[in-house]
């Protein structure tokens, strides 16, 4: 009952954001659901260390992972590891590795780093663009098949 009251208050507080481009119930579900998702992610990660240090991952991928990949993907991985080390800033490395490798939710990481989800996603986007440019300059195709 408390949760229902909280959700109602939340929806009412954001009512001025409703633009009428969807059903009101769809919009209200979105508002409540996103709020709950953010809260759950933050509680799940409360007090936990970030699981992956960039350098540890870069060292780890030298070994076990390589045997699971096709030759082309091993080459791609090696180029990516190099580009992550040489082309990205320390901040880009930390954010990209934490979110993509460590599975840290972006809003949890934003809270830890005292920034916003949007700012962190831009960091990730810029880092990916830098990596893609580097691979293209090296003559590598950045496509990864979904199946083995």
């Amino acid at each position, binding site marked *: 009952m408390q949760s229902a009251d909280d959700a109602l208050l939340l929806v009412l507080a954001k009512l001025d954001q409703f633009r009428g481009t969807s059903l009101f119930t769809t919009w209200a579900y*979105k508002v409540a659901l996103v709020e709950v998702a953010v809260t759950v992610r933050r509680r799940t990660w409360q007090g936990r260390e970030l699981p992956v240090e960039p350098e540890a991952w870069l060292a780890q991928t030298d070994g076990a992972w390589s045997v699971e990949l096709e030759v082309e993907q091993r080459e791609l991985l090696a180029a990516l590891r190099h580009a992550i080390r040489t082309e990205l800033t320390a901040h880009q490395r930390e954010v990209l590795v934490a979110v993509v490798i460590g599975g840290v939710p972006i809003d949890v990481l934003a809270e830890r780093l005292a920034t916003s989800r949007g700012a962190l996603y831009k960091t990730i986007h810029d880092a990916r663009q830098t990596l893609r440019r580097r691979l293209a300059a090296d003559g590598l195709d950045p496509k990864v098949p979904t199946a083995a």
Partner: protein
Amino acid sequence: MMSDGRNAPQPRSVLRGLLGPEGSQLTCQQCYALLDEYVELELLGGAADHAIPGMRAHLDGCPACREEHDSLLALLEGNHT
């Protein structure tokens, strides 16, 4: 499924995650603003990706927004059945 970092990441999904989707995409803020409209279009079987370009690429590149999209879609699908 909530991603909490306890499961070992799979090499291919990591490669895809590091490189991200191709092409232009929305920001997290734009994604949030348009998510309800996008999901309704998906449920109607309409051209959601044509109506809201850049949304699919963002969902492919942002695990948190993807999780919220999938949850909203599942909730509305449950209401429609």
